């Protein structure tokens, strides 16, 4: 039997970490872009858009991410479309992230007090002008901490894609364990790597919250 050094284990895990990071980034950026679109539909004037996004969000918040991954991976297969794991993982995570971000951001827009709408309206601004110049700049500030905080959820969410065979950090952990029979060491490293990525983000989210609250005392 081959002997594996600690460095062998760590090196393989770190190589797989690249894919965790890539998938996280793709999900977050893609989900963010789609989330902005959903947000504008959700707070827009068209009733149909609002209703569509409301149900979209409820659907993705009301089902486990794992099921969404399964549906993306196996579901499309039923129609004869061969979906590689990376595509299913990316698609499901983007859709999932978008739903949560749209909902977080909607809360931020609604957190802007009614008086701001009234004051800007009484000055003659139209809906889009109010949004652009008064509401969104304030909502944006409120949104930064929870958005950064949610990025941690996205990173941890990528671990689930190991189940449909996407080789990222968790999947690499399983593979390495199967080769080394040292589950505690391997998963210990896996956990530490996740922690090293997520902890700074959580921390910066908290710091931003404190900092922006000070700058945004609302009288």
């Amino acid at each position, binding site marked *: 039997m081959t002997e594996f050094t600690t460095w062998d284990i760590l090196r393989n895990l770190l190589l797989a970490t690249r894919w965790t990071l890539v998938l996280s980034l793709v999900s977050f950026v893609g989900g963010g872009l789609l989330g902005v679109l959903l947000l504008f539909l959700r707070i827009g004037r068209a009733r149909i858009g609002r209703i569509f996004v409301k149900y979209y969000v409820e659907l993705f918040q009301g089902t486990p991410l794992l099921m969404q991954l399964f549906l993306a991976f196996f579901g499309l297969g039923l129609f004869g479309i061969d979906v590689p794991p990376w595509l299913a993982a990316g698609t499901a995570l983007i859709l999932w992230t978008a739903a949560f971000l749209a909902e977080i951001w909607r809360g931020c827009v609604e957190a802007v007090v009614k008086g701001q709408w*009234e004051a800007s309206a009484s*000055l003659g601004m139209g809906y889009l002008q109010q949004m652009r110049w008064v509401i969104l700049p304030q909502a944006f500030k409120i949104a930064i901490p929870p958005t950064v905080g949610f990025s941690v959820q996205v990173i941890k969410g990528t671990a689930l894609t190991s189940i449909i065979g996407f080789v990222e950090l968790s999947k690499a952990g399983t593979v390495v364990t199967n080769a080394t029979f040292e589950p505690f060491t391997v998963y210990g490293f896996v956990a530490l790597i996740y922690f090293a990525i997520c902890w700074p983000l959580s921390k910066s989210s908290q710091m931003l919250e404190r900092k922006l609250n000070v700058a945004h005392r609302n*009288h």
Partner: protein
Amino acid sequence: MSLIEITEVRKSFGSNEVLKGINLNVEAGEVVAVIGRSGSGKSTLLRCINGLEQINAGSISVAGQPLLPDDKHLKALRLKVGMIFQQFNLFPHLTAGGNVILSQTVVKKTPKPEAEAMARRMLERVGLAEKFDAYPDELSGGQQQRVAIARALAMQPMALLCDEITSALDPELVGEVLAVVRELASEGMTLMMVTHEMKFARDVCKRVVFMHEGRVHEVGPPQEVFTKPKTEELQRFIGMVGEAG
């Protein structure tokens, strides 16, 4: 033709009728105080005039511009009549100067330098020239309200609606805001103000409107309204708020 014409205006919130047929005209240059108990509909009336509340019946026009619910008419109307709020509602992400500049550049498309010059003039007018770069949370309540007045004035409205503009202020800050309003009144600005400052209403206003249960109950010059109230409701109200000075 009066500057503000309110004809048979009715407004309900659900099944609760708050305004039950209001008729009131305000002439150009006139300063009108609207008084009455809370719940009498005075703030609602003010908010109907610039379309912040939609009326259910009747009509309103300001300087010949009718109140209609579509965006284009609302904007045209709101350019004629500015509003000051109880809670100031300054934009917290902009400086005092930025607050006064924004709507000029966005709504009127005034070039930035002109809008800034106007903002400086208006802030000077309310005695806050040196606060141009201060953010709202660095200002006292009285200063914030004065910036809000400057912001409304910068749009060069023909009339201003003041909705209990001193009610959220500490007592020692009320005076500075009322001084600004007094100044505006003396310059001939048309003002319609919902207020609890009876002394101010008496000193500055040309006419006092007493509202009761969604109707204009009594109207008259302040001397008459405060010293010789005709109706029992007004007598009781004046007794309640204390003699006006």
